[in-house]
């Protein structure tokens, strides 16, 4: 693969994202919600400063779980399918480039744009907390940010799988929304219901939970903020005992595997389909 070609396509993708009004809307909404949640977490009981970053981080975990996968999945889903639908994919692939370079370049560009948007939101929220005197647990806040970026990369890669296979952006976006619903709601509630009705062993419950990258993010974030997983009940205690200090590495590994496998699948599908 030619790094210069990937960089060139990535740079164009960043510029396109900055011109994309949907992307700017997503970024602004995330920043506003993050600042709003920060204010709420600081205002509780009139106490300013005490564990400000910890509370803010806890509030942002739920925001990240809902909003980041939604943004990343839909952006990813529209990337290749959009070029295919507009006909510009043929213009691009008629150049001396490989399909893998085009896909990776677009992925890197969107990942940079998305990462910058998330860092802006987290940064503004963090600055807001710091300005109000909250200086404790900044490390936990940083860990939540890093995990959110990893989650965004994984969801963006899943969106690219959809995009590589889709002809139209409308269809690709619909599939991306379906996946988002599945991961955010059906995965969580379905697993809870199944575990109760089938009296699932805690080891199986944990394994099934960890398959979902959103749950991996949630568990990692809770571990960073509270220092233990007792708050998650028996499954949390079991996870603590099973993985101990290696838990964070396991959770990060789950998300990274989602990213790598999804990107590999996207390249494979794109190589087979071409401009059709």
């Amino acid at each position, binding site marked *: 693969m030619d790094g210069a*070609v990937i960089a*060139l396509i990535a740079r164009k993708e960043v510029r396109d994202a900055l*011109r994309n009004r949907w992307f700017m809307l997503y970024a602004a909404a995330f920043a506003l919600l993050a600042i709003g949640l920060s204010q709420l977490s600081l205002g509780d009981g009139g106490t300013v400063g005490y564990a400000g970053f910890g509370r803010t981080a806890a509030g942002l975990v739920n925001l990240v779980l809902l909003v980041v996968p939604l943004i990343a999945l839909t952006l990813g889903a529209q990337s290749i399918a959009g070029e295919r639908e507009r006909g510009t994919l043929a*213009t691009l*692939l*008629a150049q*001396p*480039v490989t399909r893998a370079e085009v896909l990776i370049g677009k992925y890197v560009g969107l990942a940079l744009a998305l990462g910058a948007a998330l860092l802006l939101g987290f940064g503004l929220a963090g600055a807001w907390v710091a300005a109000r005197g909250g200086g404790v647990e900044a490390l936990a806040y940083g860990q939540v940010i890093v995990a959110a970026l990893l989650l965004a990369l994984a969801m963006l890669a899943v969106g690219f799988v959809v995009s590589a296979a889709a002809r139209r952006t409308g269809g690709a976006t619909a599939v991306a929304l379906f996946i988002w619903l599945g991961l955010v709601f059906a995965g969580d509630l379905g697993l809870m219901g199944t575990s109760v009705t089938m009296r699932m062993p805690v080891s199986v419950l944990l394994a099934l939970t960890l398959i979902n990258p959103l749950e991996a993010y949630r568990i990692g974030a809770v571990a960073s903020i509270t220092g233990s997983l007792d708050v998650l009940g028996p499954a949390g205690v079991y996870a603590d005992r099973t993985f101990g200090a290696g838990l964070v590495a396991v959770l990060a590994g789950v998300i990274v595997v989602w990213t790598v496998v999804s990107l590999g699948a996207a390249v494979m599908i794109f190589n087979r*389909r071409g401009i*059709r």
Partner: protein
Amino acid sequence: MIRVANLSVRYGPTTVLDDLSFDVPSGGGLALWGTNGAGKTTALQALLGLLPFSGTVHLGGHDVRRAGRRARALVGYVPQQVAFWDDLGALDCLAFLARLRRVPFDRAAALLERVDLGAHAAKRVGALSGGMKQRLAVAAALLGDPPILLLDEPTANLDAAARTDVLSLLADLRAGGTTLVVTTHRLAEVKLLSDDVIVLDVGRPRSGRDAERWIHEQTMEDAAWMAL
């Protein structure tokens, strides 16, 4: 320069191009002729490796499936449905494609002037007319001075003056040794740009003939219809 053997393209159960084979020597010209839906555009897209296909395609000795980058570096392509990034300026668009081909910016600017779009360099591609986009596509195809040009109805959206200008440019390139494969509905363009003609009929090659003889037959056929 171009060697195609048993080229077939299928979309699911439908065969859109069936067993096309031809050779075009360096500096030669080939016209693909056929009605709409005959498979001409599919053939050109397959030559570039943009579609999954069976058979073999070699461009300048490079297998387009195994060495696609090197093969496409030798080719300029004017698609039938011209598509660029509408938010970019005309020159920015050309400059982006030039960078992908490692061609200096100056060459992109010169080509924009050559196709009479110099005055519209800063205009968004989305604001250009169909004919202007077609000329931009011709300029993009000439980046890097490729020895092979694949032209899919290159004058379809042009007015008479622009068509004359573009045809003159293509004729000059052909005289300079550029190898051409062109799809067109116009007899005059077949005569100007090609030595041989392949007639495609719903994806099947019906004949590969000397262009002069074929044009004579077509003209006689048209005259017979007119007489009726």
